[in-house]
């Protein structure tokens, strides 16, 4: 490679930006291919003698979903209570504390439940996916799958992606309930509104649309987490250090992607 410092700095910088852009586009393309290939194996796998195993999907559902229930419950409860605290504090300015349910129910169901679930799953399972695939790649385990006649995308990626598609929305729904409940508990303690009255009000306020807004986002998040984890894992180079870098990158990228998508989705849907 020609040393970069012998050239004009502007030329070098331009080249650097260009290369980074090409690499970025390449990664997005790889991600898109991965999604398409995953659905291909899911639908036509049996015909190609590459059946996607239900057992593998169940195993991933366990790791990605069920084992995340305690942490999701804790964070959803905390967020629910935080919203209640802030809501009451803000509304007290207008003397409208009793209207806090409006803010809580919309915020939890439309924003905070999908967001917090997505972020936790990205940190827990997106990173794990990147680390697993990266380690398997540098240990030649991915090659071993190929030579055994096992397609790695079908064997490694599809179960994780399907499990994400099932578990992220399911966990989002779960954190909807937990978040709303614990917000209600705080409202009950602070304002003396009974839990039953709070629930009644919440059910009155929320429509199926609001619920679907949150769940729809969580479906997109689940695909983003899986694809970003896989692409980073698959591009690992240079041993254990490479795996660490890829894992960090996967978490940072998926959390950024989740937050940006969240805003775009809200913008498009509410117009």
């Amino acid at each position, binding site marked *: *490679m*020609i040393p970069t410092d012998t050239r004009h700095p502007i030329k070098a910088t331009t080249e650097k930006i260009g290369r980074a852009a090409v690499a970025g586009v390449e990664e997005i393309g790889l991600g898109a291919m991965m999604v398409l290939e995953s659905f291909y194996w899911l639908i036509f796998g049996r015909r*190609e003698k590459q059946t996607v195993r239900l057992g593998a999907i169940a195993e991933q559902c366990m790791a990605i979903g069920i084992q995340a229930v305690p942490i999701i419950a804790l964070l959803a409860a905390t967020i629910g209570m935080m919203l209640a605290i802030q809501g009451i504090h803000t509304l007290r300015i207008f003397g409208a504390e009793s209207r806090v349910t409006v803010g809580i129910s919309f915020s939890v169901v439309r924003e905070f439940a999908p967001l917090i679930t997505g972020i936790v799953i990205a940190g827990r399972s997106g990173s794990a996916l990147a680390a697993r695939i990266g380690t*398997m790649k540098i240990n030649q385990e991915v*090659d071993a799958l190929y*030579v*055994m*006649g*096992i397609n790695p995308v079908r064997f490694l990626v599809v179960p994780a992606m399907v499990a994400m598609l099932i578990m992220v929305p399911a966990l989002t729904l779960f954190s909807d309930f937990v978040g709303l409940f614990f917000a209600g508990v705080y409202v009950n303690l602070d304002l003396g509104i009974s839990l039953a009255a709070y629930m009644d009000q919440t059910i009155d306020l929320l429509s199926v649309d609001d619920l679907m807004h949150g769940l729809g986002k969580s479906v997109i998040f689940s695909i983003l987490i899986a694809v970003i984890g896989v692409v980073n894992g698959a591009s690992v180079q240079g041993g254990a250090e490479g795996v660490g870098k890829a894992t960090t990158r996967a978490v940072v990228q998926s959390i950024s992607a989740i937050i940006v998508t969240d805003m775009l989705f809200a913008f498009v849907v509410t117009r």
Partner: protein
Amino acid sequence: MNETVQTPPRNVIEVRDLVTHYGDRMILKGISMDVRADEIMVIMGGSGSGKSTLLRHLMALEHHTSGTMRILGEDIDELSGVELVELRQKLGVAFQGGALFSSMTVGENVMLPLFEHTELDRKTMEIMARMKLEVVELGGFETLMPSELSGGMIKRAAFARAIVMDPKILFCDEPSAGLDPVVASQLDDLILLLREALGMTVVVVTHELESAFKIADRITVLDRGEILFIGTPDELRADPSQRIQNLLNRVAEDDNMDADAYLNRLTGEEPAYRPL
């Protein structure tokens, strides 16, 4: 598998004028070689000679630039996805580092090809896996995780996984790398045993001279992407070529390079010379 009734092709692997690139760099420069049925073919060469690349192509893991490759009589460029999967069931590979799946036990690792490609019930698969583990003297270790095994044991477990489908060709990548001489020699014995007992063709890539002379029926010597020699170990010893004798006597080769080119390489003014 009713192919065993027919006479197998005399050459199980036929490579003709194989040219491969890594990026812009040419790695294999038109290689032609055959592997005969039931022989142990050792592919030798120093680091960067292209021997690992050749092995990856023989296992149909990479795409080549030009040339043809027939494995068990099938041109691998003309195979569909399903046909390639079927061909791969007749190939076994023992990777350099074992490449055992770290999330599965040794037994599950060995069983995986059976699980994926056959309709056998689990009990039968377990028995078959145990039988193969007995062959590599790892009987009773099937419930351990790969991380609990020593280096030599991992390689033997990898052999067990490679032979569980009774492949026609067994590929071994650097079987003795990173092992002490005694364990390395045991692995050589194991390769000989597998050929005797299971009647498979074995292709071994190694840079260990001693191991190569011990197990090989024929040896292919690669150097800088070209074939330097193909023949029996005795023919190799008797070969008069200087490069062969340097290899056998472990003499480092000096690159003859003129002073200007060397200076250019140092100052970075010319595209750097990259040794293969």
